[in-house]
């Protein structure tokens, strides 16, 4: 399927922007560590859409965006794994996963 004919590139880029900033707002608003992680995953996915869209529209004879997105996914998975283990550790240490309670590195 070739999306090039139907949808202009701008739509996809705007979509990606919106999802990115929604994810950012999720990171800023949420008080639970795990829901912050969900916001981060949203941001990473938005970036992936961007790469893939540019690849499909501007460089259809190449696969660079495709592979970049692949690598980003792999890294996102690794990072999520580490983040979860950190959250587990924090839960063991502080008995809470609220981000307001892990503020010991202050002035």
């Amino acid at each position: 399927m070739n999306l090039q004919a139907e949808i202009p590139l701008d739509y996809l880029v705007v979509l990606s922007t919106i999802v990115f900033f929604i994810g950012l707002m999720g990171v800023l608003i949420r008080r639970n560590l795990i829901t912050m992680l969900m916001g981060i995953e949203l941001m990473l996915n938005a970036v992936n859409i961007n790469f893939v869209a540019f690849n499909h529209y501007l460089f259809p004879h190449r696969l660079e965006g495709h592979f970049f997105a692949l690598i980003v996914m792999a890294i996102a998975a690794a990072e999520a794994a580490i983040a979860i283990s950190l959250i587990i550790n924090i839960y063991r240490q502080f008995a809470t996963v609220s981000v307001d309670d892990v503020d010991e590195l202050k002035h």
Partner: protein
Amino acid sequence: MDFSYTILILVLPFLIFLLIGSLGSRWRPHLSGLLGTSGLFIITVLAYVTAFNYFIHRTGEAYQAIEASQLTWLSFTDDLIIHLGILLDPLSVMMLVVITTVSLMVHIYSLGYMKGEAGFARYFAFLSFFTFSMLGLVVATNIFQMYIFWELVGLSSYLLIGFYYERPSAVAAAKKAFIVTRFADLGFLIGILILSFNTNTFDFARLTDQHGPVIAQPVTAMFMGLSVTTWAMLLIFMGGAGKSAMFPLHIWLPDAMEGPTPVSALIHAATMVVAGVYLVARLFPIYHFSSPGSLDVIAYVGSFTSLFAAVIACTQLDIKRVLAYSTLSQIGYMMVALGVSGYGNEAGLGYMASLFHLFTHAFFKALLFLGAGSVIHAVHNNLMTEMGGLRKYMPVTHITFLVACITIAGIPPFSGFFSKDEILVAAFEHNKIIFAVQWLVAGITAFYMFRLYFNIFWNSNPEYHHTPHESPSTMTIPLFILAVMSIFSGFVPFHELVTSDGRPLATEFHPMIAVPSVLIALAGIGLAAALYYRKNSRPETIAKSLKAFYTMAYRKFYVDEVYLFVTHKVVFQLISRPAAWFDRHIVDGTMNLIGNSTVSFSGAIKEMQSGEVQWYIWYFTSGVLLLALMILYLT
């Protein structure tokens, strides 16, 4: 003639000062005293050798000024160079002799007087330092070097007056001396600056050269009716008036008696206080040729001071205070003589007389002070009301003190007569009013000196705690030597040696002046004897009849109170207090404001590091967005 050994006269006391000052506390005190005294003996011998060599060889008609050493110390531009050197001319050689002799006598005397005191080594170190400074002052080749040593002399005076630093009165007296003379030195410095700015030189030889540029082509600038040169010379005289304690800058000298008595003998009788006279004498050609009006001012100031001090001395009870006021009076004589003097040959009689009186006065005043010290040492008291009849216990002191009193009263053939007579002759030829005042003061001098003498050695016979005994020989030998010099120094042919232009002066005997002066002196002595020879009630009746005047004289005419009033009410309230307020509130306030605002600002932004991760994220994302905005739309 090679006079390069004269540098030793300056260097040796300074080295001794450094030596005793740094190592004296580790030695036995006796050693510091011996070191200081022997050093001074060496330089006294050197000074006499220099004087002999100098005065024997006269090239041409006049004595020439010789620069024995010269060292370029600071050179700023081609014109502004400050040298340090040694100038030998009749005036400075005479002063060398006087200073070293009196200092040597004081050193020997102090070996006995200060024996057993704490700070013995410190005392001798300071004495050497003072000797060094005073010698440096008199051999200065230029006025700036003289100013440097002038300040050093002031410093050593401060150190020595405040020698008993645990006594608050001594500390206050030292402070007063230093502040008053420093205030006068302000005028001195401004005078030096004006003079050297207008004449482009500091050097004495060029400043006082009669045919040189300074005198031959005077500066014509005028300021407020007086020429600039006159202003400069008056300001320089202000400095001299401070050091020589002329009215109204005399207030420090009586209080300076808080120092040890040998110090009073050396500094406040014979050497430092005559620095002002020396200054005027050194710059005399400029005074005479370029600003004769200032010489009149000098004469009147000196005359008033001598009368003023003499009247006060008649009422004082502390024997050292009487001698201090006597010093003021005699220096007034010297200033008067300079003020009425002319220049060259017979007209320069006043100049010669002033320096002759300086010469003889140094010896007999030092003798008076050392004798008073001997008395104080025996009786442990300064007040003449608690003394009396000491002639039985202290014969040597008695005789030498009597010799000094006769000398100061001006009875021939002792030296005081000759020098005072020359002054009276010079005054008579110039200004009859000043002559009359000085003649009257001669009588008053004789009166109060013999009042002092009779009260100490005759009069009543009080009970002493322990019988006073004669002082040890280290104290009586200087008394003896100084008495001999007081008697015979009048026969020195001064008029051939130290005159205004270096040429010998012919003097003659004026019986019309000499006889009245001796008569009024004898009258003074007689009055003192009548009142004080034996204990009687006549002094009290006289004091009661002159009640108000007596009180005013006893209270030194309230000059100190006026000074205190001006200082406290005017200077402190109007100047110091606002300045302190400004310093505390505005200067410190600004600094505190900067400090406090930094602290409060940091307190405000300290909250940014709250440990809450979400704020950190917000900070950098909003920062990135702002940066992007700026880059996209502002560049």
